[in-house]
Every structure is written in structure tokens, then in C-alpha cells.
């Protein structure tokens, strides 16, 4: 019998709510009709369920706990994550609650040795970073899940066994009222870093784990500094180690520091010891103000990934698929990109609208992304937590030199999580046509936003679940071949949302699902698109084909490839 904690967790800023366990039909001989079961209602499991529902696919979402995340955990969302949340229709509360920021400063021996403003384009709606506690991330997603009639979120339901054959997967689910079998066509393992499913299936991650423990402590304090990333290398009170400080909503501050080697987690979390170090940090910030501790924990850095995210009918996503260093805020942000990549493919395969091969591309694209992140994140990790004497000596040399020299300072760059490009995806086609563009957004890249007016951006208009066909029309509306292609898109094997972009908003009504007025040609310029050009965009907003001149026949070929069919 699984008995989850039924008391709300304690927190000085967040009111935990207990979501009651509800007896499912399976305990009384019934059966769920959902083709997909998602294990784990963390941020990534929930986003995946919400995205599946947008494509009309039902899911059961199993969560062993009765409440959201213990502690603030992942506190920085990147611009790409916000765009993914906007596309899923759930960004508004994040925007209202989160603290957006774009710059950071690093200090060594009391001197500022590095500062960086992360690139921000006037065309972007969101700043590069948005700080928000994981409790809120999950709460807002739970609210969105509750609004959907296609998602059956089952709290207090813990998966304890899994078996599969060619036709289906069977999960054993333990609950406060006994256990039951749940059968699904597909299972998404979104059950976090300690994934039960990964262990039950005996799958091994590849990569490395770094020695060195870090403490995360969240305090409530009236520090009064702006939202930015602050890094202190080797402060006097913590020789050889470093400290990161981040502001969160509700007057909460994240303090993150490396422990001296050999010090145990228990020792580091003793209230007197932790308190003394927090006082040191506040002193360093020049803000010796009173504070209250909300939550503290110890973590270490990993660059680990499963080599394949697809195992029969089980798909791995988020921390269940990979464990990435938090330097560069990679955990949740990488997971959101996984979820957005997976959901549309799984939806089409579950509905029988695409061959199973489409799911192979999920694994291929996202394992590749995880490997790139392990590589980039590994560099930051080797700087932040030097694994050997050689790396420590190099790090110390760079810091010392950076007090008087500019040339080594780029080594202090913290390499933030970025949007990945699927340039080598098997779903891309028409490479020569792609190469014929002079700029714009290339095959495999995520779409780029364009500011159209006050609080009005291109992405605000690109709603709808399906592929997008962005057609660029001249003043007279789409003519000739583009007109035929737009007409043909209606009969495509999957839903293609037709977006006509042109100087005159009303010239294209009959052919378009969405019309975006581009009176100054701003969108056309960003996409390097002449009249008659078109972009075919996957449901996760990545471009999979583009033409300076589109014909209906080419559109059909590109769609076949993008659905995992044979290349043309």
C-alpha cells in the first residue's frame, strides 16, 4: 500500500495544497481508454500531457505524491522555455509571477572580473531568463491540466512495476486504496532523476558524475538587489569554492555554494553551520539583514544521458532521460524542449496519423541535444567545480589573470541553456532550397519571434495545434503556386495551420486560417522571404522545410518526410 505524505509541506512563502487521491475505475474492474500513460507529474510530465491534449490525445498522468515540488528546485526558465509555455497556452501566470532578467556579474577577491548581458533582441517578447520557483511552475501546470478534459491526473499513484510486449505496456500502480494494473499503448517516463521506470527496465545512463557537493539554501530576506546572476569566486570565508546568488519572487533568495571537499551533507546542513555561511554571503553582498530559511539541500553535478530515449513502447523525457548540471540552468529547460519535441510526435503516432519511425526522431534529436549540453555543461562544471588538481590550477590561474587581463575572461562565461537546432534531423527536407535563402531561419531552427506592435508579437498569432505553413504573400495576396499550395494544405494527412503573412491583412482571408499583417515587411525581412516563399514548421515550432517559391507538390513531399516517412 502506497501512503504518500498527506500533510502539506512547510514553507515560509508557499502554501502547499493537498490534492486528494481519487479512486480510479481500475480498482473496481473498470478500464481507462487513454492510449498514453505518463508517469510523473513534474514540470515535464505535465507539459507533455498538456501538449498531447492540444492534439486531442487522452492521457493518464500518474503522480506518487499528493502535492507539488518539495523546495524551489529549478528556478530559472529560459526564453525558449517561456516560448514553449506560451505555445502550450499556459505562459500568462508565469509572466505575471516571474522575475525577468538578462545580465550577470562575477566577482573575485572583491573585484568585478566579468559581466555579461545575455543577447536580447527587440523582437523577443521574453527576456533571456525568468526566475520562478518550481512550486509555482508545477502549480500553474496543474491548473492547466485541471482545465483539460483529456488529462486524468491521478495523485498518490505510484508505479512499482512495468512489462511490455509488441502491442502494449502494463504498469503496476500502487495507491492508498490498493494496487491495480494499467494498460497503455505508450508510456512516457517523466518520473525524474531517480526514475523508477529507468531502474525497473535496467537502463544505464552514459557520461560522468562530478565530485564536489553544493548547498542550495533559499532564504527570505530584504536584500533589495536587482534580478541578475551574481557569482563570487573563492570568497575569503569559503576558500577555493564559489557562491551563486539569484533572486526569486516573494522576497526569496537562492544561495548556492560549493562545500569544502570532504565535508558531509549532514554537517553542511546543520543550522548553526548553514546560518554562519548565509551570514557570510549577506556580508559579501553588503546586506547584513535578518533572514529566515525556507529550504536547503545538497546536490552534485552530472552530465549523464540515456543513449536512447525510446525503448519499445516506453519513451523517456526530462530528468528521467538525462541528468544535467544546473550551471547554465539546464534541468527543467532541457526537459521542456524534450516534452515539446515528444508530444506532437507521440500524438500523431498514437492517433495512427504517422508511422512509429517518427518517434525515433524524438530520441535522435533529443539525445543529440543532451550530448551537446553534456559537452557545454561539462565545461562550465569543470570551471565551477574543478574535478582534478590540474583543472583547479587552471581555474585559479584564469581568475588571477582576469584581475589584470581581458583575454581570459570569456572562460568565465556561464553558457546558459539555449534553444537547440535540429539541423541534421531526418524530418528536414529540401536542403538545396533551404541553402538558397540569404539568412532567415534555417531548417532545424526554432522559429524566431517578431515584434509587431505594443504587446503584440508574431508568436502571439501562431496558435493552433498542427504544422504551420507560413506563406509570404505580396500586396495582392498569395498568387499562383502559393495559392495552390495553401489550398492543397487543407487536404494534407495531418492538420496544417495556414498562416498568410503579407502587407495587407485582408487580401488572403479565404486561403488562411490565420492572417498576420506585415505592413512594414518586418516579418518577411526576419525570414528573408520574398513574395511566394513559404516555411513549413513542425508543431514544436522548428522549421523542417522552406522554399523561396513553394509549390503544392513540394509541400506534400516535405510533409511526408516530416512525418517520418521516406525521404523524397
Amino acid at each position, binding site marked *: 500500500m502506497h501512503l504518500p505524505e498527506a500533510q502539506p509541506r512547510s514553507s515560509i512563502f508557499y502554501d502547499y495544497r493537498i490534492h486528494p487521491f481519487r479512486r480510479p475505475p481500475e480498482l473496481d474492474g473498470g478500464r481507462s481508454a487513454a492510449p498514453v500513460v505518463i508517469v510523473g507529474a513534474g514540470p515535464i510530465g505535465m507539459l507533455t500531457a498538456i501538449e498531447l491534449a492540444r492534439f486531442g490525445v487522452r492521457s493518464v498522468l500518474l503522480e506518487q505524491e499528493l502535492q507539488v515540488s518539495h523546495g524551489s528546485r529549478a528556478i530559472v526558465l529560459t526564453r525558449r522555455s517561456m516560448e514553449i509555455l506560451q505555445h502550450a497556452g499556459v505562459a500568462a501566470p508565469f509572466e505575471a509571477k516571474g522575475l525577468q532578467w538578462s545580465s550577470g556579474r562575477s566577482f573575485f*577577491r572583491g573585484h568585478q572580473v566579468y559581466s555579461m548581458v545575455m543577447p536580447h533582441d527587440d523582437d523577443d517578447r521574453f527576456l533571456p531568463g525568468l526566475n520562478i520557483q518550481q512550486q509555482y511552475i508545477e502549480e500553474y501546470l496543474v491548473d492547466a491540466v485541471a482545465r483539460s478534459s483529456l488529462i486524468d491526473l491521478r495523485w498518490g499513484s505510484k508505479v512499482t512495476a512495468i512489462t511490455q510486449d509488441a502491442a502494449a505496456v502494463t504498469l503496476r500502480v500502487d495507491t492508498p486504496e490498493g494496487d491495480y494494473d494499467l494498460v497503455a499503448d505508450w508510456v512516457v517516463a517523466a518520473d525524474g532523476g531517480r526514475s523508477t521506470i529507468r531502474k525497473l527496465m535496467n537502463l544505464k545512463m552514459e557520461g560522468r558524475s562530478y565530485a564536489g557537493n553544493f548547498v542550495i539554501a533559499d532564504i527570505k530576506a530584504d536584500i533589495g538587489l536587482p534580478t541578475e546572476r551574481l557569482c563570487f569566486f573563492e570568497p575569503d570565508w569559503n576558500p577555493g569554492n564559489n557562491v551563486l546568488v539569484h533572486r526569486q519572487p516573494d522576497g526569496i533568495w537562492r544561495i548556492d555554494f560549493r562545500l569544502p571537499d570532504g565535508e558531509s551533507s549532514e554537517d553542511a546542513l546543520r543550522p548553526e553551520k548553514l546560518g554562519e555561511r548565509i551570514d557570510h554571503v549577506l556580508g559579501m553582498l553588503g546586506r547584513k539583514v535578518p533572514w529566515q530559511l525556507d529550504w536547503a539541500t545538497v546536490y552534485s553535478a552530472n552530465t549523464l544521458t540515456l543513449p536512447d530515449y525510446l525503448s519499445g513502447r516506453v519513451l523517456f523525457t526530462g530528468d528521467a532521460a538525462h541528468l544535467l548540471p544546473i550551471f547554465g540552468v539546464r534541468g527543467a529547460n532541457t526537459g521542456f524542449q524534450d516534452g515539446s519535441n515528444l508530444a506532437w510526435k507521440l500524438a500523431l503516432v498514437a492517433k495512427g496519423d504517422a508511422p512509429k519511425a517518427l518517434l525515433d526522431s524524438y530520441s535522435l534529436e533529443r539525445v543529440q541535444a543532451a550530448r551537446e549540453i553534456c559537452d557545454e555543461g561539462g*565545461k562550465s562544471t*569543470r570551471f565551477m567545480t*574543478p574535478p*582534478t*588538481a*590540474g*583543472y583547479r*590550477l*587552471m581555474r585559479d590561474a*584564469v581568475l*588571477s*589573470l582576469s*584581475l*589584470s*587581463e*581581458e*583575454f*581570459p575572461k*570569456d*572562460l568565465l*562565461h556561464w553558457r546558459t541553456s539555449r534553444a537547440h537546432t535540429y539541423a541534421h534531423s531526418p524530418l528536414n527536407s529540401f536542403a538545396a532550397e533551404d541553402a538558397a535563402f540569404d539568412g532567415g531561419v534555417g531548417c532545424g531552427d526554432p522559429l524566431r519571434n517578431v515584434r509587431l506592435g505594443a504587446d503584440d508579437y508574431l508568436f502571439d498569432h501562431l496558435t493552433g495545434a498542427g504544422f504551420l505553413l507560413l506563406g509570404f504573400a505580396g500586396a495582392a495576396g498569395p498568387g499562383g503556386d502559393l495559392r495552390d499550395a495553401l489550398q492543397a494544405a487543407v487536404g494534407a494527412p495531418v492538420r496544417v495551420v495556414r498562416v498568410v503573412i503579407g502587407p495587407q491583412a485582408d487580401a488572403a482571408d479565404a486561403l488562411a486560417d490565420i492572417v498576420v499583417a506585415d505592413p512594414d515587411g518586418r516579418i518577411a525581412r526576419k525570414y528573408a522571404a520574398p513574395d511566394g516563399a513559404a516555411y513549413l514548421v513542425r508543431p514544436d515550432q522548428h522549421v523542417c522545410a522552406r522554399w523561396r517559391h513553394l509549390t503544392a507538390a513540394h509541400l506534400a513531399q516535405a510533409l511526408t518526410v516530416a512525418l517520418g516517412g521516406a525521404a523524397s
Partner: protein
Amino acid sequence: MMPKILSTAELEQVYDLFAETIDATPEGMRPLMLTKLALALANLVGDPAKIQAAVAAAARDL
């Protein structure tokens, strides 16, 4: 101030190469290895004024 000559990617490669070479050298031999490295690089730089500037930067802020 010294000019930045290596690209960031090249500097990163050098960083890893040096770190790994230090680790591969027995602890007591590391000053010797690093001094040989400094001499070898000085010879490649070939300009006494530049070498002097590098020495000054290295000796500062220890």
C-alpha cells in the same frame, strides 16, 4: 593589457589540454613541466618585450 589572440574556442582547448597535461604529470614534477612549457612558448613568441609583459601579468595578483 595583453591583446586577445586566441579565439575563445581555442582558449578553451588550451585550458583543457593544460589541465590534463598537469594531471598526467607526477605532482612533484609539475613546476618543472610548467616552466619548460613557459620556456618553449617564449621561444615560439620570439619577442622579448612580449615575453616580459607576459611575465609581469603572470607574477601579478598571485
